[in-house]
């Protein structure tokens, strides 16, 4: 087990608090937790790419980084209209 795989495992633990807030918190807090979780996902994809030495898979992280922001903006727009 190399350093990168260990880092990936530690990062995967970080999803637990984000998931907890997404399920139990109020709606804006869940959105904030979702944005932290998306950053965690991008970094997890980067470290897994290095851990298994599959260079092309880094594209997944590159694509997810802007996509997560677009998703957050869409959710925020729906949150404004909810009332």
């Amino acid at each position, binding site marked *: 087990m190399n350093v990168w795989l260990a880092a990936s495992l530690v990062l995967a633990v970080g999803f637990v608090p984000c998931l907890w807030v997404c399920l139990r918190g109020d709606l804006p807090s869940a959105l*904030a937790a979702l944005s*932290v979780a998306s950053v965690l996902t*991008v970094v997890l994809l980067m470290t897994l790419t290095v851990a298994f030495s599959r260079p*092309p898979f880094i594209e997944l992280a590159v694509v997810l980084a802007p996509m997560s922001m677009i998703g957050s903006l869409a959710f925020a727009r729906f*949150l404004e209209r909810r009332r």
Partner: protein
Amino acid sequence: MSLRHILTEVFLSLGVTLLLLAAVGVVVLRDVFDRLHLSGLAAVGALCTAVAIVIEKSFSLVGDEALLAAVVLVVVSPVATHAIGRAARIADREDWRIGDDEQIEIEDSG
């Protein structure tokens, strides 16, 4: 163990620590506006991890694109933070601006 490996592990552990702190902070802090601070912290953690990858792999396919993804995150996460905060204000009280019934308290430390 070369200097390169040591630097890689330093930056990697720094990045992972920042990301874990951000994840723990999501559960520890109570308000939306407190929790919104953490996505910026997580983006800095992503930047540290990308720097670790660049040190390990130099500017190759993996290194370049990891740095690109991290820089995109750092540039873009304030936008998402602003949008979420604004939406939370609007969902709470119709308008994001300071209302007549609110006042900003400034603590005078002097």
